[in-house]
């Protein structure tokens, strides 16, 4: 191709005729341009305009739906949206919608979805960038728009529908049309889905590798289904444990179900986010659980952290936002000893004596690649003060380390 151009240049003995640039090259160049620049370029000539509309450039699109009253950011131009639906809906494969907190934006997203009848999407993401505005839509309005996509796509591989009013029937439609291809499903905080609904997905979509949902949807049956012989190895399971009311009771999952998961998918990551009151942790960490990434978004007690040390041998990453004002020395040491895979830890409003902290780091050694400790966490003692602890820690980590600081003016 390039030699062809060279020859052309030699023949014409003038500069390159941009208008006669081969389309493949233009396409390649256009792929590097942001949409706005591409659009400007498309006005140059008919040839360039043709390239602008080539399918390859319309595989991915992110619709940004914002209202001036609820967002500071600009929205995708309505004319552009019209054009895409008219000319490119059958080219779209990887689509996401970013909507702000207004119901209009969520509604607009649904309108677009309803029109994607010629679409065979591989990826669909519905993302609320502020308050979850999809939840404010009438459920039927939302689910009917979503099922348009499910029915037409037939090869959906990734679906991200967190914080939406998706329900069991819609999931059935999803499964009926995409069970062979579905690999990833993110549906945290979808209150209209029941454990039976998600079980249906697990039973049929044997290629499912990544799943994100809330704890109330988790069941022994689900875990067993995901570990059945027909099922591929699960790679990633994310569970959000959120308390709606204080004193809420959470069901327990049998150890045998977790064991089945680990046996079937030995390398899978179990990511758990806890947003509970301190006294709601009753059913958790009583038995061994294969959690790898653990995030405590609110205060968690010493006792629970002690149990974590005992029962989470696969733990890789631990984040504790708050604990209270009693030192976590013993608990941390135990975690260092028993969680031999631990490589990342973050501590917020906690307290640890400097000596215990140094001991912890020493025991973990260089496997600790991420150590994010707020300055206030470390309590000076007879052996270490705040000004010298970072040297000790740096020594054991094998790199320069400092605690995180917050402005104090």
């Amino acid at each position, binding site marked *: 191709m390039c030699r062809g151009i060279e020859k052309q240049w030699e023949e014409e003995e003038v500069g390159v005729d941009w208008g006669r640039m081969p389309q493949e090259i233009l396409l390649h160049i256009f*792929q590097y341009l*942001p949409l706005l620049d591409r659009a400007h370029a498309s006005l140059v000539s008919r040839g360039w305009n043709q390239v602008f509309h080539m399918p390859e450039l319309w595989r991915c699109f992110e619709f940004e739906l914002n209202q001036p009253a*609820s967002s500071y950011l600009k929205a995708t131009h309505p004319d552009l949206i019209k054009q895409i639906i008219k000319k490119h809906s059958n080219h779209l494969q990887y689509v996401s919608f*970013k909507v702000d907190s207004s119901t209009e934006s969520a509604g607009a997203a649904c309108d677009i979805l309803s029109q994607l009848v010629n679409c065979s999407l591989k990826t669909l993401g519905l993302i609320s960038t*502020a308050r979850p505005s999809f939840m404010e839509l009438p459920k039927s309005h939302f689910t009917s728009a979503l099922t348009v996509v499910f029915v037409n796509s037939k090869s959906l591989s990734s679906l991200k529908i967190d914080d939406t009013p998706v329900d069991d029937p819609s999931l059935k439609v999803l499964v009926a049309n995409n069970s062979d291809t579905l690999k990833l499903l993110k549906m945290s905080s979808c209150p209209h889905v029941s454990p039976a609904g998600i079980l249906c997905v697990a039973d049929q979509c044997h290629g499912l590798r990544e799943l994100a949902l809330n704890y109330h949807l988790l069941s022994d049956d689900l875990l067993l289904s995901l570990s059945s012989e027909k099922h591929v190895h699960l790679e990633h399971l994310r569970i959000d444990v959120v308390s709606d009311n204080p004193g809420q009771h959470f069901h327990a999952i049998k150890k045998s179900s977790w064991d089945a998961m680990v046996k079937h998918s030995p390398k899978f990551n179990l990511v758990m986010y806890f947003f509970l009151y301190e006294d709601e942790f009753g059913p958790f960490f009583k038995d061994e659980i294969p959690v790898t990434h653990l995030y405590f978004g*609110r205060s968690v007690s010493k006792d629970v952290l002690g149990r974590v040390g005992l029962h989470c041998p696969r733990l890789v990453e631990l984040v504790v*936002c708050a604990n209270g004002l009693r030192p976590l020395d013993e608990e941390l040491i135990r975690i260092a000893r028993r969680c031999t895979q631990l490589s990342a830890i*973050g501590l917020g409003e906690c307290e640890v004596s400097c000596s215990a902290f140094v001991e912890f780091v020493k025991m973990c050694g260089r496997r600790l690649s991420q150590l994010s400790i707020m300055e206030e966490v470390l309590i000076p003692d007879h052996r270490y003060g705040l000004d010298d602890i970072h040297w000790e820690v740096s020594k054991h980590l094998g*790199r320069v380390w400092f605690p995180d600081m917050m*402005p104090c003016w």
Partner: protein
Amino acid sequence: VIYILVVVPACGRALKPGSVILTVTKLPCTMAPNSIHWFRKGLRLHDNPALLEAVKGAGTVRCVYFLDPWFAGSSNLGVNRWRFLLQCLEDLDANLRKLNSRLFVVRGQPANVFPRLFKEWKVSRLTFEYDSEPFGKERDAAIKKLAKEAGVEVIVKTSHTLYDLDQVIELNGGQPPLTYKRFQTLISRMDPPELPVDTLSGGLMGRCVTPVGDDHGEKYGVPSLEELGFDTEGLPSAVWPGGETEALTRIERHLERKAWVANFERPRMNANSLLASPTGLSPYLRFGCLSCRLFYFKLTDLYRKVKKNSHPPLSLYGQLLWREFFYTAATTNPRFDKMEGNPICVRIPWDRNPEALAKWAEAKTGFPWIDAIMTQLRQEGWIHHLARHAVACFLTRGDLWISWEEGMKVFEELLLDADWSVNAGSWMWLSCSSFFQQFFHCYCPVGFGRRTDPNGDFIRRYLPILRGFPAKYIYDPWNAPESVQAAAKCVIGVHYPKPMVNHAESSRLNIERMKQIYQQLSRYRGLVPSTNGNGTGGMMFYSPGEQQPGHNQPTHGEPPTPPPPHLIVQRSSVASDPATTCLLPASSVGGSGHQW
């Protein structure tokens, strides 16, 4: 220019003895100049090198402060800010009177009024303290031009900051340091700050006088709050009285207390820390009633005396250095206080929600901890820095997901020690919009307060309506049984608002938002995921000390130099959801061309 006749005895020359040579020489005017010292910040007579330049060898000096009454009425600044300022001006005037001088509070804008003053007072010298803020630099450049046109010499001295900020930037390769650690490293390599200069005294003034007219009070007197359009009826007395005199008393008390707290340890946060302290210094540093250099050296001296050690750690000067850090970060960035077009600020899709913002600003969130803090802020003009973290987190990345710019404006109105650089910088920091820090930690609007002040005295003090609640429920009164509410004579939803959000749900949502943003940034920047093998689903972010493989290996834990303007500097976690990674191919840059 004047011409003088010089008579030179003709000795040693080939001339007849007794004859003289007359020569005519041009000399610059040596008549004592009339000076103006222009107060903006730096409202003090101690450690004020520019002021000393004004009086040095001068015939007359007039210290001016510009105040535009119309501007005052329409400005965003609240009554506590104005009162503090007016008290500073009164104090300056009182102290200048002791030196037979006065403060001239000039009504109007400097650019409009200076030319007239230059003429009227036959001014040939103008002095002022260097202002590092971009707006200040622009204003001063314009005034310098005016002065030059009027033949007025301009002398500017640095004394609002410990260091020459441009020097810090130069030492960092032309960019301001974006981590506090880096900043500390740089200044530890520089010479220590200059010593404070002497306080203005009669001796230093020498022959310099201040002509004061009989109508000085009317024309140039310090206005009252009423004159500025404030209704002062029922206004409680100032918890933080303004002025240099107060500042100097406080610093002595502050140092006494520090020496008491042997070893200079970081004091543990307790319920008392939340209350305004008679040794608190931040508003005085902001207005310049207290010289930061004086504070610095007094701290140093005290440390050496108490610890018998001549090398104080940098942490001793924490308060001063944070202030300095933000000044440095802001000085070359006129958009430092904005998200749009600010090269160091992450573009986060904050929610536009005036009602929610108003609830936060007016202490009506339904979370007593937040509301008590905001009440203290509005009533007194100061809140503890951890209280600031709590309310800033609540407004932005914690609960309400509202833009930090809105919070910054409210603080600007109410907070005595919030000036442009420090306020904007802190808000960006606390909302995780800049400066490379972690965001996993979210301050709980119930738990954090409870841990700090278990008894809830702070709440009861500022929200008397909740006084009847026992400690068990005072942080989350909506959970109190009806009987408890009735006994407290405060029904939630009637006498005190219900909580405006469900914190667990909001924080869950928001942490997810933050993660998405940072992951998108790292993908956009094409950063290589870590090779830890654990790259899935976690929360952790590289702390500033971390180094990404494949990038320039920085020294001392400094992240690589920031990329060119419009690209964002942050580095995100490696531990990203593969879920999100699978969702869109990395090359996707669709939509309306937004960065994310």
